[in-house]
């Protein structure tokens, strides 16, 4: 048994007041969850403290919140570890007071009386707050889920018995099926912060569940739709936040990347974000130079290779001209540090034989085309042991 302080960002819509912070002291075993803490505060001190919750076992997806700035499930975060994280982060006003990404900017942590750091609990981000820790998922999360036509679209009558499919294909989509719609990934999504219309990690992972399902007959239509939506698969900036946030190992960003690869395989390369060609350009430049030559990225994205430059398409010219403001912003913000870097050809090469190593990585990736899937390979930590054990490691994913 230990005492923890929960610092909860509250909002009581009927009070006429704005949000405020309130601290609650709770006495619980460190192995119990932050949700247990919230419920103790609610049970003993203030029944008006609102939080959605049901299963307490990370299966119903109700209690998505931010704890110490990170989106997660309150029932899955132990008090002891949340307290340690709070101390590391210095919620109480230590040297490292800068809130992590996604934390409320207006909140400046102050030392609390006992010198310990409170566990900071806030409602999820990217969704309107209704009351205390309850957000409106309907108008954001669910709206986006419905956007991806979230039901199976088989063609023709079903077979008399079951659909016969590759066993691994079912295990593969089960990773997306494991999504409990808690919204933690949506809450953490940086792209959605910039573009609220982004379909987002949860809905795109849901989309993969159908695209990857061999029983679905509209794979190409789905991919085309998601690639051609300017807020679709190419709106993801690859920041990994959703992978960190997901409490179920769904790895939404991985599913988005698979959608991109499958769209490319289908020859869908004319998306309005020029996302596919951008991705291809990125890959080619790194293969050639080892690191990203920003000066080539735009040209290669819109007008790839010598042919592209000698005879640029109308779209390429339009795209390149349209990207000039982005280039200027990149210079201004220091993303590209000097004008020199904008001149093609001056980009530095990797020292020694490092470029050869990069090539080897590419070759290895080419030869090992299987997808990594938690249901097939287990956690990363298990890998060594599994490798040591012999054959029982990864299985080829059928494609």
């Amino acid at each position, binding site marked *: 048994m230990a005492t923890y302080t929960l610092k909860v960002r509250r909002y009581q819509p009927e009070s006429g007041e704005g949000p405020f912070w*309130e601290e609650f002291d709770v006495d619980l075993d460190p192995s119990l969850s932050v949700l247990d803490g919230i419920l103790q505060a609610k049970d003993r001190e203030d*029944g008006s403290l609102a939080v959605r919750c049901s299963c*307490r076992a990370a299966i119903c997806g*109700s209690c998505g919140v931010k704890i110490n700035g990170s989106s997660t499930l309150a029932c899955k975060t132990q008090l002891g570890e949340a307290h340690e994280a709070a101390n590391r982060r210095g919620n109480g006003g230590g040297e490292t007071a800068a809130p992590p990404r996604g934390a409320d900017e207006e909140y400046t942590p102050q030392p609390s009386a006992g010198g310990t750091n409170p566990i900071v609990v806030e409602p999820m981000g990217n969704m309107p707050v209704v009351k205390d820790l309850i957000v409106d*998922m309907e108008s954001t999360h669910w709206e986006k889920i*419905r956007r991806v036509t979230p039901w199976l679209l088989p063609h023709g009558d*079903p077979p008399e018995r*079951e659909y*016969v499919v590759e066993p691994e294909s079912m295990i593969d989509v089960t990773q997306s099926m494991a999504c409990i719609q808690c919204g933690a990934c949506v809450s953490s999504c940086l792209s959605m912060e910039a573009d609220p219309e982004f379909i987002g990690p949860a809905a795109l992972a849901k989309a993969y569940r159908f695209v990857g399902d061999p029983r679905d007959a509209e794979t190409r239509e789905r991919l085309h739709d998601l690639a051609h939506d300017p807020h679709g698969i190419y709106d993801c900036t690859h920041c990994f936040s959703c992978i960190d946030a997901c409490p179920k190992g769904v790895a939404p960003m991985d599913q988005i990347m698979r959608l991109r690869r499958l769209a490319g395989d289908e020859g869908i390369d004319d998306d309005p974000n020029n996302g596919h060609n951008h991705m291809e350009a990125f890959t080619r430049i790194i293969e050639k130079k080892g690191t990203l030559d920003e000066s080539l990225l735009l040209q290669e994205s819109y007008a790839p290779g010598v042919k592209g430059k000698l005879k640029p398409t109308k779209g390429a010219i339009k795209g390149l001209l349209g990207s000039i403001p982005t280039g200027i912003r990149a210079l201004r913000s220091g993303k590209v540090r000097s004008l020199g870097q904008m001149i093609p050809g001056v980009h530095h090469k990797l020292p020694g034989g490092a470029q050869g190593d990069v090539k080897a990585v590419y070759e290895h990736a080419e030869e090992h085309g299987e997808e990594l899937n938690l249901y097939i390979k287990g956690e990363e930590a298990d890998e060594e042991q599994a490798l040591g054990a012999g054959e029982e490691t990864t299985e080829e994913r059928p494609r």
Partner: protein
Amino acid sequence: MVSGRRAAPNPTAPSDFSRIASAAVPTHDVLVIGAGLAGQRAALAAAEQGVSVGILSKVHPVRSHSNAAQGGINAALNPGDSWESHAYDTVKGSDYLGDQDAIEIMCREAPEEILHLEHLGVTFHRNEEGKLGTRAFGGASAARTYYVADITGQAIMHVLYEQLMKHSETVARYEEWFCTALAMDENGECCGAVTRNIADGSMELFRAKSVILACGGNGQAWKPTTNALICTGDGIAMAYRVGAKLMDMEMIQYHPTTLAGKGFLITEGARGEGAHLLNAKGERFMERYAPNKMELASRDVVSRAEQTEINEGRGFPDGTVALDITVVPKKRIHEALREIVLVGRDFAGVDITREPIHIKPGNHYTMGGVKTDVDGRTDVPGLYAAGEVACVSVHGGNRLGANSLLDTLIFGRRSGADAAARAKRTEASRPSSEVLEAEQATIDDVLAREKGSGRRISEIKLELGQTMDEYVAVFRDEAGIQQALETVRRLEEEAKSAYVDDKGRIFNQDVLAAIELGYMLDNAECTCVAALERKESRGAQYRTDFPERNDEEWLKHIDLQRGDEGPDVSYSEVTITQWEPEERKY
């Protein structure tokens, strides 16, 4: 302890819920209350008949407790298996208290239902040929459990919700609406329900020609329990209050493998995959209790064995025994028991692939409930029940693992179809608005109680849960059950003056907790009365003062109906078609 510091004003105002609130007067041919597997299946089946359907739930449908069903769903679909074998296992598992006509229907219709789900998109595990694959489960004479890793309930429920989204034209969804009472017309028929829109606190009287209760069991009346916080016996209590009969209420399942202290479930699938149960001496103690089926005997048998080991000092100091999953190949654990890896890691700090995990029997399932026939009809015309809220009875004294999902789907579908048929042939009657006013008055009364006028809701709930877990659990006797009943009746009085802190309208969870407490107390009272009544040991009811099964006197159901002073007891016959009771050995 208010810090007083203000955060920045929230840039986004609470969303506009008026869209839902101002929708046309909610009238449906069929109204489904509860949106887990039974409710969603019922709604889809009713909609198929071309009637208008509303489905209402106090949580978003995908938050429903069907999620927690990990292991799988039974069906005799493999060549070489037969529905008769499945039915016999179920009858034997029920300790002969299950109604065999209902069990026959469930087992006969199971294969078709599995195929239907597969066609809708459930990602069932496949064998090497790419066909549906099975795993072994407790109490079954063949491997006939179909599954999606160990998230079977979740996977099926999310797929049904996909179908609800697909059919949004014909099925209206009321998500986060709380039902406070059923509405009756002057002929004594159920014709709607009183609800509270949780988002804005508005009260609404729904009209319907048929009402289907599909709102789950009552596990929260026990503590600890594997059940979610929402499982407060709402439907059982609401039906009881309008005069419907309840049945088999003494039959409360304790699951053999729950995490000590927290009540989290470790799927029976773990034992299905080959995991062992060990006492503190490292003995595989099931050898002494069920030498043939070992860990895969019926749940009541395994739970009693564990509790005996613990009571006789062969458990661990924390009052547990161990479940050893390390004997299952690691790759298989990751593929088939992944959720349990996460539960072990996140909630017990144990890597189940490397070490045994401590477990004990814990409250898990309500075998009893609202008495229905095989089409979900209760004793109250117009009122149906399906899933855990109902008692058909297919589970009798003890439910087999992986039969609960099947129960929800088969009887959800049958209820939905029959409720739609009834709606087509009946005229709508108008529920009196008195019931709405009465419910509003009850809530106003709760809100008006001043702080400190009585106990806190949470205190009463805690005392209820601990009392039930102490006296109405794996082993029971008259003195203990009597003690529990007296406590429950005292708590019923105390609940009348219990106060709430939240006086608002928007997401007032406090006032809902007060209503749920009333539901749980009704459930607990009925369970105590039935457990006192049954003076024998059968299935989950093990009376240390009557340790034998007594078919001569007690091969019958205990029915309860609301009377002036608690439930009135009556009996009904157990339907026997082809399996005469015999001694039960595993």
